[in-house]
């Protein structure tokens, strides 16, 4: 009874082979991450030191540290967020909580999708035209951050909208039935329960923004600036551009130096991601439903 036929056995063999194939493909994903990390730590690790992090580059950027670039990246990202977060969150609140389904809403949604699909080099050219030239901000942190901000807007909007939508509709209806206005409902119930998702989305976005090169290279980041930025109208160095410069534009750079810069950059990104995960876990435990 119930003995496997030839056909069953053959199918079982096939089943095993397919399973193995899929497993291998999945495992392959780990490989590039591992190789990148190992290579960076192996070659870049010895470069990193206190003076590497906190000193200016010297000798045509072939020696010294990366402090202005490190500071510049943080500066650029923070100013970009100052613009994109309030704007993006407000837009998402409108789209999620107020917008009726009409042509205007559909147009806004279409714009967001298209904005997300614009290549970063096109954002850079837009930034040059709009912020550097038209608004006369010049090549400055302000212009570069605004360009980065516009680039991050779609992600902030989508992440925020999804977190708002994840708050059960029954809460909103309960509020409205008690006589709350939309805004009272949003402020007292919807936003407090969506904030963990919003912040996670923003932090993940920060890590991506920190690594962008194209949007800042024409708008505000410079190969070398001999002083630290003092206002948003100054130019600045940035890690991503610095990495590009010392890898391709400058001769006589020690071979391991770019790996050190890359390790710092990826270290910032990974620790941001870790922070966002930790934050999410913390806030999720506080949720009341």
């Amino acid at each position: 009874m119930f003995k496997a036929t030839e056909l069953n056995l053959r199918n079982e063999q096939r089943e095993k082979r397919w399973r193995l194939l899929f497993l291998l493909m999945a495992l392959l994903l780990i490989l590039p991450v591992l190789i990148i990390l190992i290579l960076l730590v192996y070659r870049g690790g010895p470069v990193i030191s206190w003076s590497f992090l906190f000193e200016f580059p010297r000798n045509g950027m072939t020696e010294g540290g990366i402090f202005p670039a490190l500071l510049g990246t943080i500066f650029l990202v923070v100013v970009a967020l100052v613009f994109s977060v309030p704007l993006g969150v407000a837009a998402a609140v409108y789209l999620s909580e107020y917008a009726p389904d009409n042509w205007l809403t559909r147009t806004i949604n279409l714009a967001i999708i298209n904005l997300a699909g614009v290549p970063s080099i096109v954002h850079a050219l837009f930034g040059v035209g709009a912020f550097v030239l038209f608004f006369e901000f010049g090549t400055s942190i302000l212009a570069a951050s605004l360009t980065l901000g516009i680039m991050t807007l779609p992600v902030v909007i989508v992440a925020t909208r999804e977190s708002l939508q994840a708050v059960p509709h029954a809460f909103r209806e309960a509020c409205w039935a008690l006589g709350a206005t939309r805004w009272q409902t949003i402020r007292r119930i919807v936003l407090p329960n969506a904030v963990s998702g919003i912040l996670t989305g923003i932090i993940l976005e920060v890590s991506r923004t920190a690594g962008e090169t194209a949007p800042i290279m024409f708008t505000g980041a410079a190969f070398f600036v001999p002083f630290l930025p003092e206002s948003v109208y100054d130019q600045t160095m940035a890690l991503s551009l610095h990495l590009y410069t010392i890898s391709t534009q400058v001769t006589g750079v020690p071979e391991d130096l770019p790996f050190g810069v890359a390790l710092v950059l990826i270290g910032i990104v990974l620790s941001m991601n870790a922070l966002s995960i930790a934050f999410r876990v913390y806030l999720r435990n506080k949720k009341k439903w």
Partner: protein
Amino acid sequence: METPPPTPDAPDVLANTEIAVRVKDFSLWYGTFQALFAVDFNVKQGIITSLIGPSGCGKSTLLRSINRINDRLGYVRTEGVIEVLGKNVLDSDVALPQLRKQVGMVFQRPNPLPLSIRENILFSYTLHTPDARKRTKAEKDQIVEEALREVLLWDTVKDRLDHSATALSLEQQQKLCIARLLPVKPRVLLMDEPCSALDPEATAAVEELIWQLRGEYTILMVTHNMAQARRASDECAFMLMGKLVEHADTAEMFVTPRHKETADYIEGRYG
């Protein structure tokens, strides 16, 4: 389940003939679909009126039109009049927060807000009291206690008022959802199948509570459960396919329905 006996000192609410909600020639469309057809319906003050009918007959739609919670659906169009306490609530000069303060709503699925028990009770009070922030804690404590006592929940939850309301049992949640309406002293309570998410024991408890609120509040309750309509309401209205077929004393309707459709429905031939 037994009918909860009316409390001896309850006012003789059945003698009251004042109308709290008057629906006149009311029709409603969802887009091109007509859900209600010229409904005429009077809800007397201070009693429990139940609204029965098969799924999709429009009873919830009618209920949700009275506090205009359906408004937010942009594609809803209405004709006719719904008067609450003598005022047509469909008029453009009606402020929705005021309407919803007077006309509270209890939902099918208990939906306490993701706040503490205390905050849930004070929520509508805070919304509708201009200087709510300046009120003393003692004053607010009293409001919370009164509301919870009125729904028979005080003794169970008095030691954990700052705990999350969503951790309560479904029965307690539904009672809390009724309690949070009371601090702003509504006149009408709309209940949309208030017991359908509850087990039989909890149903009995919530029904008993609703029965106790009778007299002080005008209660209009949609129910799917005919036994519930029969044991827990004074008057009963039967709806079918967007029309109000019959409205009578509950006892009368269940014994001698005037329409064939009503008789068929309450005998369980459809629905």
